[in-house]
C-alpha cells in the first residue's frame, strides 16, 4: 500500500497541469445543436493537436498509451482544471474506440480510431430497443446478409445525440434462429446510410433540446467488413464495450462531485449561517456526503490499484453501485439546499437540472437492480 508517485509521474502531472491551465476552453458550451457539436469537436481536436488525446489508447492509433497511474493523474488534473467534459465525444472515446481496439481488425482500427481522437467524428450507441430495456439479448433489429452487405431493418431507442453523430456502434440480430444471446453482431454503422430515419425523444430536464433519438432502419445497407469481432459474436463484443463504460475516465466525475459537495457546504453556510448548518439536518447530510465522497474516491483508487495487479473485473461493480448512490444523494441534497428557488430550472448548468438529470444517470450505467444482481452473483457467488 502506498500513495507514492514517481518523480517522472510528478513531472507528468506538472506538464498536464500547465497545458490544461493554458488551454482549457473558457467559453461556455452551447446548449444544443450544431454549435454544441462544434464546441465538443474543437476541444477534442485541441487536445489531440497538443498530444493530450486518448490517454489510455495505444500510441500506434494516435493515443498516449499511458499506464493507469498516469491516466489517473491526467483525469485528476483535468477535473481540477475544470476542463470541459467530452460530452458528444464520449461514446467514441469510451465505447466505440475501445471496442475497436480490443476486437476490431487492423483495417477497422486504421479507418476509425484516429478520427475519434482527432475530433473529427462523433459516435453514438445503438444498443437499446423499444421493448428490450436492459435485456440486450432480447434485441430484434434484423440484419440479413446480402452478398457482401448486411441489410438492416428495425429500431433502436435512447440513442444519445444520434442526430449529431457520424457513426454508430450498432447491435443487430444476424441469426434469428440462434438462442437469445447468440446470433447477434456488432456493426460499425455510418449515420448517413440511406434507410435510416431519426425521431427525437423529449426528456424531462430540457423540453426544448433533443438529447435522445429513436433510430428507424429500413433496409439500411452496411458492408459486411463493418462487422467487428466476427459475425454472430456481437454479444461478447458488446460485453467488452460495456466493461469500458466506466474506466479511469470516471475519476473526473468523482472529483467534480467532490468539488460540488464543497460548493454546497459553502452555499449552505451562506444561506443558513455557519453555526446553524453544523447542527442542522442539511449539515448532517452534507457531512455524511463529505465522508462518502472521500470513500468514493478511495474506491476509484482501489479499482486502479486492482487493475495494476490484473485483478478486479466484477469487483468494479461495487464502486459503480456506490458511486451511483452517492452521486444521486449529492444531487438531491443540492436541490434541497436551494430551498424554494428549486422551483426554477434555469437554462444554464444548474443544480436543479443536475438533480433531474440524476434520474437518467442511474439508468445509464445499467439500472442499480442489475448492478446489484451482478454483485450478488459474480462477486459474492450467490445462486441465480
Amino acid at each position, binding site marked *: 500500500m502506498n500513495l507514492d508517485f514517481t518523480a517522472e509521474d510528478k513531472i507528468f502531472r506538472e506538464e498536464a497541469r500547465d497545458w490544461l491551465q493554458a488551454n482549457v476552453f473558457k467559453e461556455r458550451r452551447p446548449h444544443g445543436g450544431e454549435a454544441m457539436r462544434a464546441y465538443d469537436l474543437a476541444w477534442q481536436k485541441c487536445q489531440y493537436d497538443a498530444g493530450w488525446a486518448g490517454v489510455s489508447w495505444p500510441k500506434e492509433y494516435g493515443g498516449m498509451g499511458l499506464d493507469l497511474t498516469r491516466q489517473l493523474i491526467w483525469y485528476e488534473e483535468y477535473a481540477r482544471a475544470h476542463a470541459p467534459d467530452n460530452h458528444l465525444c464520449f461514446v467514441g472515446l469510451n465505447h466505440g474506440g475501445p471496442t475497436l481496439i480490443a476486437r476490431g481488425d487492423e483495417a477497422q482500427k486504421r479507418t476509425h480510431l484516429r478520427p475519434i481522437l482527432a475530433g473529427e467524428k462523433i459516435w453514438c450507441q445503438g444498443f*437499446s430497443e423499444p*421493448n*428490450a*430495456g*436492459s*435485456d440486450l439479448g*432480447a434485441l430484434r433489429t434484423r440484419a440479413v446478409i446480402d452478398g457482401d452487405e448486411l441489410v438492416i431493418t428495425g429500431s433502436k*431507442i*435512447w440513442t444519445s445525440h444520434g442526430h449529431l453523430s457520424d457513426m454508430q456502434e450498432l447491435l443487430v440480430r444476424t441469426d434469428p434462429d440462434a438462442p437469445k444471446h447468440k446470433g447477434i453482431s456488432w456493426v460499425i454503422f455510418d449515420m448517413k446510410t440511406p434507410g435510416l430515419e431519426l425521431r427525437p*425523444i*423529449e*426528456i*424531462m430536464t430540457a*423540453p*426544448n433540446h433533443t438529447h*435522445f433519438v429513436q433510430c428507424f432502419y429500413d433496409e439500411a445497407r452496411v458492408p459486411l467488413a463493418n462487422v467487428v469481432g466476427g459475425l454472430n459474436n456481437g454479444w461478447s463484443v458488446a460485453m467488452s464495450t460495456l466493461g469500458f463504460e466506466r474506466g479511469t475516465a470516471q475519476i473526473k466525475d468523482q472529483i467534480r462531485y467532490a468539488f460540488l459537495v464543497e460548493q454546497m457546504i459553502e452555499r449552505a453556510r*451562506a*444561506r*443558513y*449561517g455557519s453555526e*446553524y448548518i453544523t447542527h442542522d*439536518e*442539511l449539515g448532517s447530510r452534507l457531512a455524511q456526503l463529505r465522508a462518502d465522497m472521500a470513500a468514493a474516491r478511495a474506491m476509484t483508487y482501489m479499482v486502479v490499484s486492482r487493475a495494476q495487479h490484473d485483478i478486479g473485473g466484477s469487483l468494479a461493480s461495487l464502486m459503480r453501485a456506490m458511486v451511483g448512490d452517492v452521486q444521486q444523494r449529492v444531487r438531491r441534497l443540492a*436541490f*434541497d439546499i436551494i*430551498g*424554494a*428557488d*428549486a*422551483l*426554477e*430550472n*434555469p*437554462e444554464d448548468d444548474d443544480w*436543479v437540472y443536475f438533480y*433531474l438529470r440524476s*434520474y*437518467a444517470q*442511474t*439508468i*445509464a450505467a445499467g*439500472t*442499480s*437492480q442489475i448492478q*446489484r444482481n451482478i454483485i450478488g452473483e459474480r462477486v459474492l457467488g450467490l445462486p441465480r
Partner: protein
Amino acid sequence: MDLLPSDDQTQIVDTIKSFLAGEAPVDRLREHGAIGNPDAALWPKLGELGFLGLGLAEELGGIGLSASEEMLVFREFGYHLVSIGIFGIVLGARVAAVAGDDALRDELLTGARRVGIANPRGAAAGPGPDAQDYHLFEAADASLVLLVDEQGAGLLAREDFVDIESVHSTDSVLTLERARLAADKPRLWVARSADNIHSRALMLLGAYAVGLGEGARDMAVDYAKIREQFGKPIGAFQAIKHICADMAMRSEAALCQASFASLVMADGLPDTDFHAVASKIVATEVAMKNAAANIQVHGAFGFTSEANAHHYLKRAHVADLLWGSLREQRERILTFPTPA
C-alpha cells in the same frame, strides 16, 4: 367512526373522476407542448358542476359540504395533475366569501377568473431573497394572486407585485414568475381567527399530493404488469415488486392521514393544525418518493417526455415547496402540543 367515503361522497368522487378522465387525461400535458397547460379551460366547467365551492358554507354562497369532500376532490386533482391554479380559485373564493366581497366570490365560483399563487422565496436566514420576494405560479394570465401564510390568507392584484420576471419553471407545465411584493396589504384579507385558510391550504395540498403519489403508483404498477424482460413481466421480479409494494404502502399511509386530517378539520377539533401539517408532511414525501420510484420502474423510458412519469416528480416537488417545504413543516410540527 368511518374513514371510508359515504355513498354520497363516493358519488362526488365518481363524478369528478369521470369528468377529469374525459377532460383532463394526463396525456393532455404532452399534447399541449412543453410550456404551460390547458387547465384554465377546466375552471368554468368545474364551476358549473359546483366543484369550486364544494366546501364553502351555503350561506357563503357555496355547496355547503365539508373539508372531507374537498379533500376527496383535491386528491383527484392531484391524480390528474390538474394545474395548481385550482388552489388559487378555490381558496381565493373562500377569501372573497369570508371577507364579504360577494360579487368577487360569485365570479370566482363560476370559474370565470384565474387566480395565481404567491409563494415566498425568502430564506429563514442568510443572504439571498428576502421576505418581499415571491414566486408567482399560474399568474401570467391572472388578475388576482392568492397569498397564504400562518397569519391568514388574502387576495392581491397582479399589479401589487413589481419587477415581475418570467423564469423557467422546474415543472414546465406551470408558468412561473419572480416578483416583488409592493403592496402594504392585500386587497382582501382573512385573518386566521376568522377562517383558518392556511391549515385548509396545507390539508388540501396534502390531499393533492396523495393523488400525485397514487398516480405515480398506478402508472408504475400498470407498467410492471405489461413490460416484459428476461421472458416475464418485470413485476414478477422481487426487486420491482417490492418497489411497487412500498409505493402502495406509502400511498395508503398518506390517504389515511389525509382523510383523518379532513375529518378533524370538518369537526373543528383542536388538532386541526397538527393534522393538516402532518398530512402535508406525509403526503408530499410520499409523492416525491413514489414519483422517483415510478421513474425507476420505467427504466430509461421513465425519464422521457414520452412517458408521463416526470410530471409526477416535478409536481411533487412543487407540492413540497409550496407554502413551506418538508424542512419547514417538520420544524413546525414540533411546535404543536401533543395531539389527542
